[in-house]
């Protein structure tokens, strides 16, 4: 299949082969240790209890150092061992069986794990886990909307994370951060600050968490020395001594060289993803910026070669791939059905002073991405107008191989989005994107994604006067019988009223959940790493970060907008279809009304064709959602914002949404990201980009645009140039992000028919890449039907 032409050395090739061949399995170690601790511990202070629990994990979990590894440390017992987090979601035995035997994204669960779950874990956690606490506190309105597929809830199985590391660990060791904590403790004003005692607990918890990870690293040093003593091969023996030396230095102290910098990051990463199963795991963010000073210094001093540096990075890449996303069940699995845990390496962009950030390490990392072709970590280009074309074209050379990485972001727009939200210029330039497309001020911001929001479903509820036609249950407001609406404006006003109601319901739930995490599930280790948690003496989940943002993610604006356009065009403007006829047809999923469906599908202006009629409605929808969400206050002193991405949620939401007025049949997938409805764009990629650029990306925290091309289009230098021009043009129009799926439909069909032969086929899904064979067949079909642009407009 995908012929591998790499220059990786034999060590890396073997490590890569092992990570590709090892199947994810569920490790009960963490759950058992945590439960053990919680049964015995009597600490009253919640943050200190959480810190001690973390310490217990880091002091008692097995230490793994694999053969030939240079960068060490695993979250579980071994590569692909995936822990569970019963304090958030306590799996039933039935859940474990589903995880074990489901067709896609399964995790092997052995008998021992099931026994421990049954005898130790299940008796303790129910009623105590966050999932139980959350669902017990949600209102009937919230539950109705959640079950109907109006929105999802990100925090029902996973903790808030959605943050990216800044440069702190490259400047400071954990001991330095402990010193910062000491001085913060000394500054506490117990006379005038009523929060002083709470801050003291938070700070002491952070200090315990720092000790926990220092000890975790020391245990690796001890293990390495142990292995060295028993090692017959002198070459490997020397490496093990070196590993021990590195683990003694970092992360207790600041790293002094390239190797230490990578290992320090990795211990930090493991700390964050062991403390809690934070969404989007954790991420080094602007890695090329952070690593460049170490790289340059060592290259000048002659202590490192480019090949050494590449090997170390590749060993780290394997580590990312060894950590599948924590096992998800239910709606959380449906909205994000993937092993990918969304660590997304940012390349290029600007320096804090606003100058071109592309450096030698940028190109080195791109070589690593190219050679490794791994699902994890994800990668992206932060492309500024100040970055050279050579950087873009190096990225596109990887894109055209068709395994879905890297995606491409408009760095200047990312900065503008952050500035609009009130970040300082420097903080904005140190930022980038994480997860799929989400904008953040790295090292300084908690930007919490709280759930996907199904825009077409809100229209469906509007057309049915508050009733969900799938269940017959009234879940929305009575906004009037659509048959009586005298104008499109009246319909849109009713839609806005429903939108307002459901955003209210979502935000009310969020307020409760935010406080639950702040009060019961602090993250002292993560707090150490994010400004200004130490200075404020506040937890990451409790408003400690310098910036605190809450997101609701709009899903399927194109399906919703095309549906609105169809109603406006056919029912109100042309009067070719009556509202009654339309509603009857939708209720019967167009059965016996194929002619009507085809005229809705084919004879309606559609978003994605640079048509102002259709795109104007899209922009109205964008503004309506923005007005409802943006600027609402969250409970942590920050604001609500919107973004547009869908991961795999457009398939899940589609499965709960009946036929839509754009001619889509019931239960079919909705449109993804801000991409046009699958097959609705027929004027080529330039028209898609023009349409997508009409919304005001600056007022989002990220948008996701998928474009699928066949490899032929990117052939040769000419092909690269053309796509480079296309990307630059979209960014000149202030687009946020674009990603390319470069693969033939024939290949995808072949893979569907014979998955065994195409195990390594990676495709871009939506904001991330995934193994094609791990996708559900609905999602596979969806990717196949996404418009395949066979040719650029001749004008290119």
């Amino acid at each position, binding site marked *: 299949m995908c012929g591998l032409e790499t220059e990786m050395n034999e060590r890396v090739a073997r490590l890569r082969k092992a990570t590709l061949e090892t199947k994810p399995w569920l490790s009960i170690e963490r759950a058992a240790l945590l439960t053990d601790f919680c049964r015995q511990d009597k600490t009253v202070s919640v943050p200190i209890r959480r810190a001690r629990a973390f310490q217990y994990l880091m002091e008692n979990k097995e230490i793994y150092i694999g053969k030939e590894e240079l960068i060490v440390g695993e979250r579980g017992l071994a590569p692909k061992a995936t822990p569970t987090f019963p304090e958030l979601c306590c799996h039933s035995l039935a859940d474990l069986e589903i995880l074990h035997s489901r067709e896609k994204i399964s995790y092997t669960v052995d008998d021992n794990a099931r026994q421990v779950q049954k005898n130790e874990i299940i008796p303790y956690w129910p009623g105590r886990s966050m999932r139980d606490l959350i669902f017990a506190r949600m209102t009937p309105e919230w539950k109705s909307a959640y079950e109907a597929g109006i929105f999802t809830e990100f925090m029902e199985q996973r903790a808030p994370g959605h943050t990216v590391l800044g440069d702190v660990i490259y400047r400071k060791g954990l001991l330095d951060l402990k010193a910062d904590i000491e001085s913060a403790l000394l500054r506490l004003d117990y006379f005038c600050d009523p929060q002083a005692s709470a801050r003291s607990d938070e700070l002491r918890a952070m200090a315990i968490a720092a000790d926990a990870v220092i000890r975790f690293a020391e245990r690796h040093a001890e293990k390495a020395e142990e292995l060295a003593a028993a090692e017959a091969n002198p070459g490997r023996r020397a490496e093990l001594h070196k590993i021990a030396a590195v683990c003694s230095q970092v992360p207790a102290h600041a790293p002094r060289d390239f190797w230490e910098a990578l290992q320090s990051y990795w211990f930090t990463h493991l700390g964050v993803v062991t403390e809690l199963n934070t969404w989007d795991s954790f991420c080094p963010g602007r890695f090329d910026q952070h690593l460049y000073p170490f790289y340059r210094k060592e290259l000048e001093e002659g202590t490192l070669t480019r090949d050494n540096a590449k090997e170390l990075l590749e060993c780290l890449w394997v580590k990312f791939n060894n950590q599948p996303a924590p096992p998800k069940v239910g709606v959380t699995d449906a909205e994000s059905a993937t092993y990918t845990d969304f660590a997304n390496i940012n390349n290029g962009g600007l320096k804090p002073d606003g100058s071109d950030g592309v450096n030698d390490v940028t190109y080195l990392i791109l070589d690593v991405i190219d050679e490794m072709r791994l699902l994890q970590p994800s990668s992206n280009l932060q492309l500024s107008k100040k970055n050279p074309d050579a950087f873009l074209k190096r990225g596109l050379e990887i894109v055209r191989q068709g395994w879905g990485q890297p995606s491409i972001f408009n760095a200047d727009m990312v900065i503008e989005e952050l500035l609009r939200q009130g970040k300082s210029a420097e903080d904005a330039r140190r930022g980038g994107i994480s997860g799929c497309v989400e904008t953040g001020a790295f090292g300084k911001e908690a930007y919490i994604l709280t759930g996907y929001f199904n825009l077409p479903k809100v229209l469906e509820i509007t057309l049915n006067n508050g009733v969900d036609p799938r269940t017959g249950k009234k879940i929305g407001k009575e906004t009037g019988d659509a048959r009586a609406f005298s104008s499109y404006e009246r319909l849109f006003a009713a839609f806005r009223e429903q939108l307002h109601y459901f955003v209210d319901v979502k935000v009310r739930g969020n307020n409760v959940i935010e406080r639950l995490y702040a009060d019961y599930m602090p993250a002292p280790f993560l707090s150490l790493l994010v400004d200004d948690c130490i200075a404020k003496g506040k937890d990451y989940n409790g408003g400690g970060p310098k910036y605190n943002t809450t997101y609701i993610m709009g899903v399927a604006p194109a399906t919703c907008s095309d549906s609105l356009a169809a109603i406006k065009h056919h029912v109100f403007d042309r009067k070719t279809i009556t509202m009654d006829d339309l509603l009857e047809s939708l209720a019967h999923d167009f059965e016996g009304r194929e002619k009507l469906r085809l005229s809705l599908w084919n004879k309606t202006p559609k978003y994605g064709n640079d048509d102002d009629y259709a795109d104007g409605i899209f922009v109205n929808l964008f503004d309506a959602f923005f007005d409802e969400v943006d600027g609402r206050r969250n409970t942590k002193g920050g604001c609500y914002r919107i973004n547009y991405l869908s991961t795999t949620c457009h398939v899940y939401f589609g499965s709960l949404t009946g036929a839509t007025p754009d001619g889509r049949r019931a239960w079919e997938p909705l449109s993804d990201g801000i991409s046009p409805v699958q097959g609705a764009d027929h004027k080529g990629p330039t028209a898609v980009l023009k349409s997508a650029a009409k919304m005001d990306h600056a007022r989002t925290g990220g948008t996701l645009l998928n474009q699928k091309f066949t490899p032929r289009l990117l052939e040769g230098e000419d092909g690269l140039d053309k796509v480079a*021009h*296309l990307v*630059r043009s979209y960014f000149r129009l202030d687009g946020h992000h674009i990603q390319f799926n470069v693969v033939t439909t024939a290949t995808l069909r072949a893979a569907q028919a014979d998955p065994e032969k195409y195990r390594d086929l990676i495709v871009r899904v939506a904001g991330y890449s995934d193994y094609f064979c791990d996708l559900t067949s609905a999602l596979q079909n969806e990717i196949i039907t996404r418009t395949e642009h066979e040719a650029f407009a001749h*004008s290119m």
Partner: protein
Amino acid sequence: MTVPQVLAEVLKDEVFFDESGGGITISGGEPLRQAVFVEALLAACKARRIRTVLDTCGFADPEVMRRVSEHVDLFLYDLKLMNSERHLLFTGVKNDLILQNLKMLAERGSAIIIRVPVIPGVNDDSDNFDALSGHLSPLGLLDIHLLPYHRLGSDKYRRLHLSSGMEGVDPPTTEQMETIAARLRRDGFHVRIGD
């Protein structure tokens, strides 16, 4: 469609032209069969500083060609056969007018890329390319694109129950194309295979 309607469609892609240095290419059929419309569209594009390319077989009234050339930044100019009798045999017209127009454009200083569809058994012989080289060199026209004959249209002919008259003709091999290209390069031409 009217000229303003087409121009509005063209202008939608202006940002892409800016980035890529691209513009509009008018091709056909033979665009100069609708010379009035084409001339007006080209003039409208130039008024908006859009780069223009005209893809033509050169068989047009010299006065029309002269007027149109005022608004054309680059000609893609087909030269199928240098032998006028064979040209008549395969295309239905002699090539005298085509060569006359080409000379006129060359003398006016128009930018021109010569395009030769290479069809085995029709125009891939050395006589044809010797004549081509001998004709173009004095005119200072040194850019040649060789377009290998393809059969992408044969299914369309079949479905329309028409004959392409090309049944049994195979596309030239890569080697054949390279041989022709090398022969022209020896005479100092800049040759590209494919469009």
